[in-house]
């Protein structure tokens, strides 16, 4: 950081306007100094130089001179109109001046001493005519084949670069790549401030272009090889490796579009800005899950960018209609955008750039690639990983939720393909086939989900005309069952349960009956007992009566015998009932 600050103070930079270059050079080319662009034929040197001029003239108000040693201005104009650069128009507006320097040794004789003052005058004239701040010399080395006195030429080139510096113009000098040196004639010897190498190589029939800053005096810069692209909007460089892991994170959660899946993810769904991978074998419903997520995003009013590497947009729209997803509606409303391309159509870098460009243009909140595994057709595993790393870093920077699907193969471990990119993934859903009893069913589970307590259950994954459904899988009696097996098992279980309930019912009723019987018995005994008690009471009463009678009889007898006694009288009154 300190160093960067230092750069800003010491070295003034001239923004190129070329996508990505200003980031890796931390501001552009050294202002007021010459920069050497070297590379083999067809590596994009002229385009680089021309774009530098055009962007300068259009975006930074710095007119430029293009001095061509190879192509005529007419050819240049024709070549660059396809990239959206109308040189003739720019020339008529006084923003660009071109000069074609042509020298043919067979037509020119040399006698004695000379210098290249004529070239200086021409360049100076062109610069003054439009007040140019930028100059391109493409490819000045042609002079070496046009002039035979190398000694003079070298002296003059040295003078030329010094002259350019003195004029304070930011210059680009292009040079053909040499066998041992950076340039065929060692131009790097004269241009010491900044040297950029463009490389063009073909690997497995797919071409990749790369750019490297070989030196940049007085400035720190990215030193990696950066892939770059040439397409209809000019040159774009991917400064991806300059991205770090310091992107912001968000706590916001977004729905997956499948309520049951939300439930598995703490009931809230994915984190916004996280990276989700769905992997599974063919036909497990990856695209359906992706489309459901896309629709959920659109329903929230978010924009969704859908990269399809397997199917055409119309086919996806048709197919998703069968599970009740109306994608066409969201396309029409401009919230959903499809981009279809065969992965082998162009190299990985091109894909990555296309991603970048589309993302920048459409500015989506949700980004879907279906499937990423097809990218491996366009490059090796390491390359794919590097591309995805850069892509994911980029998306995280922009807080875009990324949904990737990955087609895994039947052979080997199901998690195989994704192993390489696992570390990049925040939430990883796995769709797998469960084959049993002549039937194939889909199961879904969460392999990992960073930063949340997710469910560990395998859910049966159903595609219905109402969308995606998740059903708790049958896990009773130590077995995992899905599909009709689950249904059968569940039905069977219901029946068994019913029978068991009936049995319980029966026993309950029996017990009730027993209880009733018992109570009846108790009642009978009690009745008997009561009867007995009654009898006993009656007997006791009779006995009393009998005794009373006896006492009376005895009193009567006593009276009869004329004896007096009060006691028997009291007793009599007491016992009387």
């Amino acid at each position, binding site marked *: 950081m300190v160093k960067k600050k230092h750069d800003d103070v010491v070295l003034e930079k001239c923004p190129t306007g070329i996508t990505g270059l200003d980031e890796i050079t931390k501001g552009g080319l050294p202002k007021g100094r010459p920069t050497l662009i070297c590379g083999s034929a067809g590596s994009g040197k002229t385009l680089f130089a021309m774009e530098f001029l055009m962007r300068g003239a259009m975006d930074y108000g710095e007119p430029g001179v293009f001095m061509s040693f190879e192509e005529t201005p007419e050819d240049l104009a024709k070549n660059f109109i396809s990239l959206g650069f109308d040189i003739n128009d720019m020339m008529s507006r006084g923003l660009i001046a071109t000069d074609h320097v042509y020298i043919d040794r067979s037509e020119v004789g040399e006698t004695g001493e000379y210098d290249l003052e004529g070239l200086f*005058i021409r360049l100076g004239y062109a610069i003054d005519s439009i007040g140019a701040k930028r100059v391109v010399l493409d490819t000045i080395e042609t002079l070496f084949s046009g002039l035979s006195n190398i000694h003079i030429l070298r002296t003059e080139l040295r003078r030329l670069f010094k002259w350019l510096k003195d004029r304070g113009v930011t210059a680009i000098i292009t040079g053909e790549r040499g066998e041992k040196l950076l340039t065929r004639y060692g131009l790097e010897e004269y241009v010491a401030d900044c040297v950029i190498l463009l490389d063009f190589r073909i690997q497995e029939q797919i071409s990749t272009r790369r750019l490297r800053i070989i030196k940049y005096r007085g400035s720190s810069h990215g030193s990696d090889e950066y892939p770059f692209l040439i397409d209809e909007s000019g040159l774009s460089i991917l400064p991806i490796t300059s991205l770090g892991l310091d992107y912001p994170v968000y706590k916001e959660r977004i729905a997956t579009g499948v309520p049951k899946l939300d439930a598995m993810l703490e009931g809230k769904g994915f984190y916004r800005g996280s990276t989700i991978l769905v992997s599974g074998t063919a036909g497990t419903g990856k695209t359906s899950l992706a489309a459901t997520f896309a629709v959920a995003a659109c329903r929230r009013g978010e924009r969704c960018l859908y990269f399809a590497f397997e199917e055409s947009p119309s086919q996806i729209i048709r197919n998703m209609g069968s599970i009740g997803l109306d994608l066409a509606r969201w396309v029409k409303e401009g919230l959903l955008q499809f981009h279809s391309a065969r992965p082998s159509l162009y190299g990985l870098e091109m894909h990555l750039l296309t991603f970048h460009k589309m993302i920048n243009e459409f500015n989506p909140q949700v980004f879907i690639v279906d499937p990423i595994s097809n990218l491996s057709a366009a490059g090796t595993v390491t390359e794919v990983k590097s591309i995805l790393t850069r892509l994911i870093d980029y998306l995280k920077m922009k807080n875009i939720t990324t949904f990737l699907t990955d087609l895994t193969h039947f052979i080997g471990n199901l998690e195989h393909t994704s192993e390489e990119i696992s570390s990049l993934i925040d939430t990883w859903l796995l769709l797998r086939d469960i084959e049993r009893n002549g039937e194939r069913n889909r199961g879904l589970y969460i392999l990992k989900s960073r930063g949340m307590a997710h469910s560990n259950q395998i859910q049966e994954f159903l595609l219905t005309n109402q969308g995606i459904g998740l059903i708790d899988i049958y896990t009773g009696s130590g077995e995992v069952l899905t599909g009709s097996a689950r249904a059968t098992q569940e039905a069977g279980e219901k029946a068994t349960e019913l029978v068991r309930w009936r049995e319980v019912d029966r026993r309950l009723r029996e017990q009730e009956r027993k209880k009733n019987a018992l109570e009846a018995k108790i009642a009978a005994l009690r009745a008997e007992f009561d009867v007995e008690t009654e009898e006993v009471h009656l007997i006791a009463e009779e006995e009393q009566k009998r005794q009373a009678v006896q006492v009376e009889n005895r009193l009567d007898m006593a009276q009869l015998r004329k004896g007096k006694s009060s006691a028997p009288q009291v007793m009599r009154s007491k016992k009387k009932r």
Partner: protein
Amino acid sequence: MKTVSPGKRKKAKTAATEGIWSLRLYVAGQTRKSTTVFANLKNICDTHLAGKYQIEVIDLLKHPQLAKGDQIIAIPTLVRKLPEPIKTIIGDLANTERVLVGLDIRSV
């Protein structure tokens, strides 16, 4: 700078100027180099093309826009406009022999 042989115009290459050598010398400023090359050229012409030549000297410091037309890179440059085809020689013209070859004067 200087124009030797009067009335030379670009269009004067028709019948009226048949056999006339039209030469154009590009220099940059009135330097010692410029005068040397002009002297060398004048010398050669006087010797080999006496009376049938005209030299136009163009100072590019005064007329920088003219450098483009004849594809001037090096200074000094001598361009033989007539007789056709156009021929170009760069350098100080010190080597008379090579100038004669370069301008194809020997064959005349």
